[in-house]
């Protein structure tokens, strides 16, 4: 757990020359946490985790403290008799699935979600999904993916989930063109982007995941793929295998990121840059006005990112370039070098970039650096606050609308708020 190595960065034209690799204790959720937003986004899907009491407990605790809407997720908790072979896991799974589908007749897609224990006992959920799909044909589609912490770090759970959808997507006719936006976006942001693409003359536009699992977007040779989230590398590769062309772009955070992201689409549609600027000018102006107010608070402040949501690089780029913050350390659970190339190119030279985590050593550095703001998970926030460090919960970045022009100021405000609060309090 102490093997730290300096790896030279591939010569991709970016100015980040070295990344520190760390391994050790990781303070981060497993992929199951993605269910918390995915089950809200895909409104007719149900997520059945096949796992342990720990998985159920994690899901219940992950969304901050405890969420209590009617859940479209549940856990089939493995018990001693399942492990000892006294119960046939497949029969048990069929029984549990029947129970859920009887309770929720509105469900159109059932995800069987693998966990650490189901992976270790090699429970074949793919086969189970196939069997259940046949049993419920015409009514419910049953898919499987793994959100196990052995494989998936936090937001990667969305990647493995969406990957399981790729074979289900209908083919796009060979003579058609389509833009496919990949990654969960809040509905309000999705609608903003839909309007903007329409105004730019880009069509047809689809989103994955869709709001209804019956409205799967088509994919084929005419598909241009634009990533709205940086943690979807496997799904992106699978879509490329089905003919889609991956557009290279920064991620749509802040004015610069959103503009670059949209331009990747307008370039692909051969729309002149002037037209892009004409269409986006009012939104850009609004965003810049909003950011300017937050920039006054953020400029010159030092920030460290602990590795967590995988959004660290694009958001660090936004805070550094548009809000004037100084990046002390940016750590990310894993570095997708290809997807991150446009972001790396925009990050400052000599940035201290860390891939992976060895928690205690990282906290040692943090205490030595004492940045003005630390982005971290929920488990660490209060202990760091009590050491006098101001923190921002990383999980808010996946639960809050932060993409696009009209959310850029909100994104900046998320980081300004802890600083404002600390200057207000006299207790």
């Amino acid at each position: 757990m102490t093997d730290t190595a300096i790896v030279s960065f591939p010569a991709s034209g970016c100015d980040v020359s070295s990344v520190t690799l760390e391994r050790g204790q990781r303070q981060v959720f497993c992929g199951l946490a993605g269910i918390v937003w995915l089950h809200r986004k895909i409104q007719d899907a149900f997520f059945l985790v096949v796992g342990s009491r720990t998985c159920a407990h994690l899901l219940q605790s992950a969304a901050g403290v405890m969420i209590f809407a009617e859940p479209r997720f549940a856990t089939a908790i493995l018990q001693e008799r399942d492990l000892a072979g006294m119960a046939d896991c497949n029969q048990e799974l069929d029984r549990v699935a029947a129970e859920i589908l009887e309770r929720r007749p509105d469900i159109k897609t059932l995800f069987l979600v693998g966990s650490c224990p189901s992976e270790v006992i090699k429970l074949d959920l793919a086969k189970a999904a196939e069997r259940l799909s046949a049993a419920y044909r015409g009514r419910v589609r049953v898919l499987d993916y793994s959100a196990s912490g052995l494989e998936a770090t936090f937001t990667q759970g969305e990647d493995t989930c969406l990957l399981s959808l790729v074979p289900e997507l209908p083919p796009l006719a060979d003579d058609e063109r389509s833009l496919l936006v990949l990654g969960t976006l809040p509905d309000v942001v999705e609608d903003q982007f839909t309007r903007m693409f329409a105004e730019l003359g880009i069509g047809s536009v689809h989103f994955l995941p869709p709001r209804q699992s019956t409205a799967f977007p088509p994919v084929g040779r005419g598909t241009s793929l634009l990533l709205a989230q940086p943690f979807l590398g496997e799904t992106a590769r699978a879509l490329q295998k089905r003919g889609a062309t991956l557009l290279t772009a920064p991620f749509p955070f802040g004015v610069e990121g959103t503009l670059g992201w949209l331009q990747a689409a307008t370039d692909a549609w051969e729309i002149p840059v002037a037209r892009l600027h004409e269409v986006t000018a009012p939104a850009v102006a609004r965003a810049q006005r909003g950011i300017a107010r937050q920039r006054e608070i953020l400029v010159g402040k030092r920030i460290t990112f602990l590795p967590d949501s995988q959004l660290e690089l694009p958001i660090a780029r936004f805070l550094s370039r548009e809000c004037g913050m100084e990046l002390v350390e940016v750590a990310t659970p894993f570095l997708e070098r290809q997807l991150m190339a446009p972001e790396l190119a925009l990050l400052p030279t000599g940035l201290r970039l860390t891939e992976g985590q060895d928690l205690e050593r990282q906290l040692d550095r943090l205490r030595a650096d004492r940045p003005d703001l630390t982005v971290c998970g929920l488990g660490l926030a209060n202990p760091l606050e009590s050491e006098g460090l101001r923190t921002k919960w990383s999980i808010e970045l996946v639960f809050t609308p932060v993409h696009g022009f009209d959310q850029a100021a909100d994104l900046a405000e998320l980081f300004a708020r802890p600083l404002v609060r600390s200057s207000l309090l006299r207790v």
Partner: protein
Amino acid sequence: MQLTLWSYEGPPHIGAMRIAVSMDGVHLVLHAPQGDTYADLLFTMIERRGQRPPVSYTSFQARELGSDTAALVKNTIQAAVDRFAPRVVLIGESCTAELIQDQPGALAQGMGLPIPVLSLELPAYTRKENWGANETFYQLVRGLLKSRVPTPGTERDLRKGGARPLANLLGPTALGFRCRDDVLEVTQLLESLGVGVNIVAPLGATPEDLLRLPEADFNVCLYPDIADQACHWLERMFGQPTVKTVPIGIGATHDFIAEVGRIAGIDVIAIRDPISARMPWYSRSVDSTYLTGKRVFIFGDATHAVAAARIASEELGFTIVGLGTYAREFAREVREAAKRYDVEPLITDDYLEVEARVADAHPELVLGTQMERHIAKRLGVPCAVISAPAHIQDFPARYAPQMGFEGANVIFDTWVHPLMMGLEEHLITMFREDFEFHDGATASHLGGGVKAGAVSLEPALASSDMAVQPDATLMTWTPEAEQELKKIPFFVRGKARRNTERFAQERGILTITVETLYDAKAHVGR
């Protein structure tokens, strides 16, 4: 496999964490995959602790499974011991590590560490959180004290020179329901009896404190869910008697004082309730008349559920319509209590089953956990929380014990405030068709909270109505009778409908009129 939407307890290693977090100088090393660190937030967010839990995780990943996970375990233990310098290290594993059988406990024992190493067996597929906490605390007490057990027949050498009696308070933990304030309240109560507190454990204790447990005259088993094994062992090995009454409620507090008096050999006859014990008078006050016979459904951990049942019945004059627990280990206590109050005990950790039983019982107040709070919200019924699993709201900033005389005051306020005040309830019954003053309205002092509640209750009632309706096709209600039925408070309306239909069926009445409704009401009574 057990289908679970919400769970009352976490896995047993969470129980072990609660013990480690409660104490000073104890560190827990968990062999667990990436993701299991989520458990830290239970302590730092729900309880708002300002320190990280003293827990190190191996965070193993798939790529390590084929290789040397034993080295990973040993490195993690060594690093934790070097960095945190604990005086005792606990070794445990989470559910996934249990499957790969690395035996981290045996690995740790072989490392020759200079401090006591305690390996925990936490069977994740059969046991749960409270069991894990109970077992960990017992193993810790036993592990530290077993070499000091006096030989059988040794006279206990206590209270030299007429010193006052000393008690240990055992069972309060991190993430426990109101433990922080209960400890304070019970300490003050014992002080008022002339009993000193020797050690409180595990909350706030060090390993050295545990070594001093035998110095007390007796143990108070404050939370049997956590401490009954340890108390039992101390009783057998060190001859320390156990005070078993949990002082929640006025009656139980009096019983507790009597039991302490008996065990400590002090005269408590002259002890009077403190002037601050307002609950008995508040309950006798005329404005509380409206509390009489309120139908209450109780569910929680066994200790708090049984205590709540006694308070509800003897101290507030409620009618108990349901009593249950998720703690199977303490099912017997709840079954016995249920017998006293003539209700069917509900022993389950299936949230859906609890929900169905609550809906079926048509309570006017639910006393439960955060889960039942959610159930009650959906059903539009007032609710007060009486038990863990803990929620951030269960750690109030103010002093809010459940135990002792102040605890009874807190309970009175907490349970009574969600209810509609007496006169307000009368007005609603009298002017049932007032557009603002209707069934769905909550108590006026609670603001506009639960408007949707009554709506969501209707389908639940409708479906349970169907089930009992013997011959729905033949029996009809006149529109006037239907109209009259709506004037009955919504929480008993389903029952009134069923009773009326049963009454009609028994008499061969096919058309239910307003007369039939009132005939049935007179026949059944309330």
